[in-house]
């Protein structure tokens, strides 16, 4: 049996050799590994292999006010190249403003956004807008293309505006259509596409000039789960090709699943930045053992856990399961399973997990500065 540390090692190795994070994740989950552990290890592996050089995008003390309303308050953020970076925050917290500031649409009242240029130098995006337009791709929350032009016409139009020659436009268009899976719909008017296809077209338009950084604002908003996955797969694919991706979303689970690092934006500030594991660790070191038995004889199990408070500091029922928190999941799970075996109660379901980023975020929002424990 492969142990958790061994699994981590395997994942690290596979990622460093260029394995697709999503493919690996699917493979491991199908092999029976808990999804949360796989996600955590994948995040850690990606963080480990991420280039640690100078940040590609750097926000320094960025403050933006609309009248008396402070939307961004001294934001400091560094995003290295090649990263799939997520920004989470409640709706209306300022995610879009932050992204717009990153691409130079909004000039901050204080602070600066700098960009590492291909020659290695750094430049404020507000002083080198020409570079910004070439290095940034942006997919806003609302798809940005002409509904009355076809898919191909849209891509070719924006490609032409990025000064690609007609031949390059055609070639680029073909490759992008393949990438986003819209080859068959290339002559369909954009307004007649489904929501997911529109999003894919929007992404295609955003990367038509092969930007170094792709910024997406709520890329999966209003999409069904299958399409969401498709979009994320596409983003991972783009990311694998070397494009740094910055995604702002309030769908925390997706960011948790796909992003190498996440920044939490709340109260006009980036309060936390890190991998999913790091974010979890900030608020809780505990794992959670989820158990479901056929007779639901949870009082006996609760009593068993209560006797070992050091191992099970907190036990509660949630969704027909008994949940026991523990800092030592292997030992705790083993003892618990032994106890159930003694009771001869049929075990229906068991899994070990850690609090999700969504739960961490929810807790942050609800309790603000109070951690889970």
């Amino acid at each position, binding site marked *: 049996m492969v142990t958790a540390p061994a699994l981590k090692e395997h994942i690290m190795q596979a990622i460093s050799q260029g394995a697709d994070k999503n493919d690996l994740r699917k493979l491991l989950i199908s092999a029976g590994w808990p999804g949360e552990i796989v996600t955590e290890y994948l995040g850690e592996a990606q963080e480990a292999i991420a280039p640690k050089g100078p940040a590609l995008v750097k926000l320094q003390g960025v403050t933006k006010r609309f009248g008396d309303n402070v939307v961004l308050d001294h934001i400091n953020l560094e995003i290295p190249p090649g990263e799939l970076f997520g920004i989470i925050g409640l709706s209306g917290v300022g995610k*879009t403003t932050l992204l717009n500031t990153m691409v130079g649409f909004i000039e901050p009242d204080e602070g600066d956004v700098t960009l590492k240029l291909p020659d290695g130098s750094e430049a404020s995006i507000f002083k080198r807008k020409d570079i910004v*337009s070439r290095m940034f791709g942006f997919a806003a929350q609302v798809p940005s293309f002409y509904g*009355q032009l076809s898919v191909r016409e849209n891509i070719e139009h*924006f490609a*032409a*505006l990025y000064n690609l020659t007609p031949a390059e436009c055609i070639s680029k268009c073909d490759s992008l259509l393949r990438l986003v899976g819209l080859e068959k719909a290339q002559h369909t008017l954009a307004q007649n596409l489904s929501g997911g296809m529109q999003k894919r077209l929007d992404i295609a338009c955003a990367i038509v000039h092969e930007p170094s950084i792709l910024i997406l604002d709520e890329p999966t908003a209003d999409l069904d789960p299958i399409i969401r996955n498709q979009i994320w797969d596409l983003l991972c694919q783009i990311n694998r090709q070397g494009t740094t991706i910055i995604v702002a979303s309030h769908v925390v689970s997706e960011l948790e699943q796909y992003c190498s690092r996440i920044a939490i934006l709340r109260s006009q500030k980036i309060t936390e930045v890190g991998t999913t594991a790091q974010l979890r660790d900030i608020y809780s070191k505990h794992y959670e053992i989820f158990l479901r038995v056929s007779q639901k004889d949870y009082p006996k199990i609760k009593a068993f856990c209560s006797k070992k408070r050091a191992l099970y500091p907190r036990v509660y029922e949630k969704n027909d399961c008994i949940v026991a928190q523990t800092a030592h999941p292997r030992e705790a799970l083993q003892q618990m399973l032994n106890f159930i075996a003694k009771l001869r109660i049929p075990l229906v379901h068991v899994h070990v997990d850690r609090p999700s980023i969504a739960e961490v975020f929810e807790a942050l*929002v609800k309790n603000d500065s109070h951690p889970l424990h």
Partner: protein
Amino acid sequence: MTPTRSTEHISRGFENLLVLVQKNLKLLVRAKASALVVILGPLLIIFLAGLAFDNTNLYAVRIGTYSPSYNDLSNSFIDKLAEKQFEITRYPTEELCTQGIRRGETHTCIMFAPNFAIGKNGSNEIRFAVDYSQINLVWTILNVMTTSISARSSELSRNLTAVLLHTIDFTKKAVADRKQNLVALTTENDEIGQRLGNVQAELMELELGLDPGEFGITNLSSSSRIVKQWVDNSLDLGKQSLDQAQHFINAVGDLVKNSPAGSSIGTGVTTSLQASVLEIANLKDRLSKTEDIVGEQYAELNSLIEHIAGRITQTKSQIDLAESAKVFTLDEINVINTLLDQALLNILTLQKSLNEIEKMINAIQITDPQAIVQPVQTSIVPVVAEQSYLNYLFPTLIALVLLFTALLLAPTLILFERNSPAYFRNFMTPTSDLVFMGSVFVTTALLQIVQLIVIFAIAGIFFTQILNAFYYTAIVLALMITLYTCLGMIVGYLFNSEETAMLAAISLGSLFLFISDIIIPIESMPAVIMKFASFNPLVIGSDLLRRTILFNASIGEIWTKMLLFAAMAVLGVCLVLAVYYGMKKNTFSKYLAKFVPKKEPLQ
């Protein structure tokens, strides 16, 4: 930037411009409603205007008439209007006639005065009731009406003048004839004067004095009385003598009778005495008769004398009257003489007047009634070959189409772009703002050019004149397109919503329209507005087009206005840039505001 990079930059700019124009055209064509309104709308307008104005008449004008009593004269006016193919409706009352205009049954009401007739002052009036709210029609209707009425008035005036001239001619002949009579009258007057002088002299010599005393009527009367007295005395004496004789006889008789001798003798004596007595009685009787006769004769004589005295008195009175008459006659003759002198003077004056009249009549050279009614013949000669109203309106229609196309299309394109989700992405591209502005300009200009080609192609069927001054017309059209498109772009950049921009564009277009000479003449506007109107791009544009298309004007004739128009076009371009860059930040902020999401639950 090196020249090579600069050229490359410009080249890329042009390429991007073409891409944007291509995109704009595709979007316009695919947005069917916009294409219909913006592209086909003006074409449809000019097509309809062409159909509407492709004639020189007003066949559809309906006229109401009212007269308390129609007569030949009023009917002749109505017939004259009917000849023009106007639809005439006769109303029974004046009120119904004017209500007809309000109800839209008629365009004008012609009201004839009661007893409408020529030569009756104050009654030969024709009143027009018109609806001034139909400002575009009212002047045309009035013009046509008054022209028709004037034609009939002129006809009547010509007839009256002919009568007048005939009378003058007759007078001229009569004056010539009567001049001889005046000469004869003068001579006769002179002769009458002389004769009156003679009569006056004769009368002066006539003595009509009479003294009744000279006839001795008083003496005659006293003599007759004396004679009567003497006769009476003689008769009395005779009677006394006879009485005495009788008394004597009687005494003799008595004596005889009483005498005895007397019986013998007495019988003889008595017989003699008796005979004497008889004789005396006879004498007495005869004396008595003589007395009576004398009395009668005396009475007759007296009567005769009195009659003669009366006649003399009467004659005296008559002679006195005759004397008075003579005096009066002499006075009258004097008066007559004076009057004759005056008459002579009058005759001479009349003669002089007649001479002058004759001279003046002879001096009248125009004897043609038409020449007197219309001493100055006016005729309107069109400076271009008259074909239809469309011919004259063509430049204005072109200007209107260009103006409204530019004012509607440019903001549509700008706001189409700005409100499109793709605005954000376009903004991200390394495309210059000037290229975006240029794409709007070029797209609008292209569509205007397409419209012009269609219009000119259609117009070419009706008149070939448009191609005479092709180059100058093309320059004017280019300036018009530039300026109008700039105005449209300014509207587009100033407003954020398509609705308000359309409203502003239509308002601006209407403003230009109302202060132009298309609806009412500029000259009839207040001075301030007239001054403003002279700088109205629509007025200048249509005027330049009119000159080049209709008058085939050379550059020397239009260069000042063309220069002004070019300056305005340059100013328009500068304003577009100023407004664009002035509004850019604000516009983008508003655009970004659209993307601030609403609160959504955490997933």
